[in-house]
């Protein structure tokens, strides 16, 4: 997330509207003046409105680079080629509850801050090995946190009660995987997509390295 202040919001509302919404979510008390908030955000170099709201083009570029680090181009195209960042933004905006959105957006800042602490530059300015090193640490952290909650999550699910929001990096990883492996690139290049198989063979030979069949429905 660099400081390009020309970044345009990609979704329907502008940044001002996004801040108004955030303000509404926080009970209308959070901000004394919108322009001051904008200035503060721009000064911080974080174009994301934080917490809750719409995603900017810079946010999506940032999410693309998160997803690409998780699922890089190898013998098949990576997450960026599958426009995974834009998909993540859509899902967080449309499908995450406000509390989860805040965790996700705060998580974006946390990632960037962690990179700045470690390497004195932003995540976007970091090299692929620096990104991989940082996200590997965050992956271990989320795994530890999420595994410690497994029993409780199971009980809540059985009781029909909503689970605690996930660790932010679990959210990012899950959305990156979902976005990539349900994309056209993921289905048809990383995996094998056959819309109408026409027959069922119950047992065929399999050699390691062969991709899985992509689902249809």
């Amino acid at each position: 997330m660099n400081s390009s202040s020309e970044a345009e919001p990609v979704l329907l509302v502008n940044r001002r509207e996004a801040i108004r919404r955030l303000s509404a979510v926080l009970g209308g008390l959070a901000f004394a003046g919108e322009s001051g908030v904008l200035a503060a955000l721009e000064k911080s170099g974080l174009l994301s409105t934080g917490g809750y709201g719409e995603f900017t083009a810079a946010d999506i570029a940032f999410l693309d680079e998160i997803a690409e680090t998780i699922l890089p181009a190898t013998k098949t195209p990576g997450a960026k080629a599958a426009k995974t960042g834009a998909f993540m933004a859509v899902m967080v905006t449309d499908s995450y509850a406000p509390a989860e959105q805040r965790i996700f957006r705060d998580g974006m800042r946390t990632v960037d801050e962690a990179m700045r602490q470690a390497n004195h530059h932003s995540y976007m300015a970091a090299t692929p090995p620096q990104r991989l090193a940082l996200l590997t640490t965050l992956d271990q952290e989320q795994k530890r946190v999420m595994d410690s909650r497994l029993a409780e999550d199971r009980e809540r699910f059985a009781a029909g009660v909503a689970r605690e929001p996930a660790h932010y990096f679990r959210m990012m990883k899950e959305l990156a995987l979902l976005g990539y492996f349900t994309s056209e690139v993921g289905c048809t290049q990383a995996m094998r997509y056959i819309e109408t198989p026409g027959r069922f063979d119950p047992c065929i030979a399999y050699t390691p390295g062969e991709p899985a069949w992509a689902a249809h429905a």
Partner: protein
Amino acid sequence: MKSTSYDAIVVGSGISGGWAAKELAEKGLRVLLLERGRNVEHIKDYVNATKAPWEYLHRGGRTIAMEEAYQVLKRDLLNEKNLAFWVNEKESPYTEVKRFDWYRGYQVGGRSLIWGRQSYRWSDFDFGANAKEGVAVDWPIRYEELAPWYDHVEKHAGISGARDGLPQLPDGQFQAAMPLNCGEELIAGRLKKSFDGRRHIIIGRTANATQALEGRAPCQYRNACWLGCPFGAYFSTQSSTLPAAAKTGRLTLKPWSIVTEVLLDKNRKRATGVRVLDAVSEQWTDYTAKVVFLCASTLNSTWLLLRSATDVWPGGLGSSSGELGHNLMDHHFRCGAEGNIAGLDDKYYYGRRPTGIYIPRYRNLFGDKREYLRGFGYQGAASREGWSRAVKELGIGAAFKDAAAEPGPWKFGATAFGEMLPNHANSVGIDATKQDKWGLPVLKIDCATGENERLMRKDMIADMAEMLEQTGAKSVESFDNGSFPGMAIHEMGTARMGRDPKTSVLNAHNQVWDAPNVFVTDGACMTSSACQNPSLTYMAITARAADFAVNELNRRNL
């Protein structure tokens, strides 16, 4: 009010209503088929059937807006892909005295478009259980009476399955079975050698044709049935019964027709027809007929009875027994076990088979005796895990990605479907304080599972884990995801069949005791729930009742 006359009126166009319309029209009656929802034209209206996963904005998932609009569906089945086949919950609310998940499909074809298609005969272990154990009332029919009608409906519907020779799950008129995959074959073979050979893994018998039928191609192994099939390969009203009924030239189908009551001739104690509210124009029309078939789905058929002839019986048509609206049942499920299968890493499969495996009931049969009554079956499958396994795995980067794109370990998992005993206290009634979009009072549902189900559930969880351990599966884990009545979408009862008008709503031919030209042949008629999926039995009962109705009309008995 306009008035229009037919020989027979069928209320509801789902699995049961489609069969009633077909059978009655083929036997020469002029049939009016009424459906409260929109029309869905075969193939043409399956708008998502050939859409690729990446063509959905949310890739098939759900949004906050969807969850807000679908407060019930979101508890389990809400998704972006076939949302158009589920009821608009804001327009058609209901009242839950206790949590009851009522999943409805208000359109031509009803839930036949989105059903799970598992098709099993019931046996006399099921039809005879109430009498044997002194539970509720006896079914007025036995397997022998229904067997020819199972034959009849299976041939037309196209049920694929193997002839397994099990008395608790009678064989039928099956098309060629879909095969078990290699993981299932392995576990099935080992299970045969355990538990004295009393437990069996068979291929799930399913209403997916493996051979062409009139106007229908065989299954193309897309496993996208719930979007509507462009090949007509699975049984639905649209693919199977509606074209057969239409072919007679005697069928009139009217969508957007909400039947609000059955009209009764008080002196003759016979229905004269039904009153219909047009869902779009909100105009009222009375239709007359010699016989009325209620196939509006279990709870909606009962809603209709509760609202009819209240000037004669304050509790509604069929309420003289005191049992109308009572004895609501479903199956309890969402528990079982799963484990890994070792030794098949060099094996895979091709194509997406639209059925899994079935383990027929073995509890409280053939000398087995448990601390609860009845039993359960399992539905499951073996498969290689997909990319989603990677969400929980540690790792990011190149090797992680390429591994996630390959098929994962073989897994075998199964969930139990348990019988729920009939209980007078599990009931539905009219909630006069709440109205739907059309100003009609809604249904209130008061239903819960009891002690028998609680005890059975322990076995449902432990048995599957034990079977997996015994057949060499690794990392076996049992699960219980919790089950609330309604979730299995096998709601049954509330207008049960019986032998005595004092204790049942319907007789052995599905006639309302109090008005014998009114037939109820959907799930409302069920006297017990067995543990098998019920739809095939609705088909057979409906075809049998239609045959009886036409014979009675010809004898001038109705």
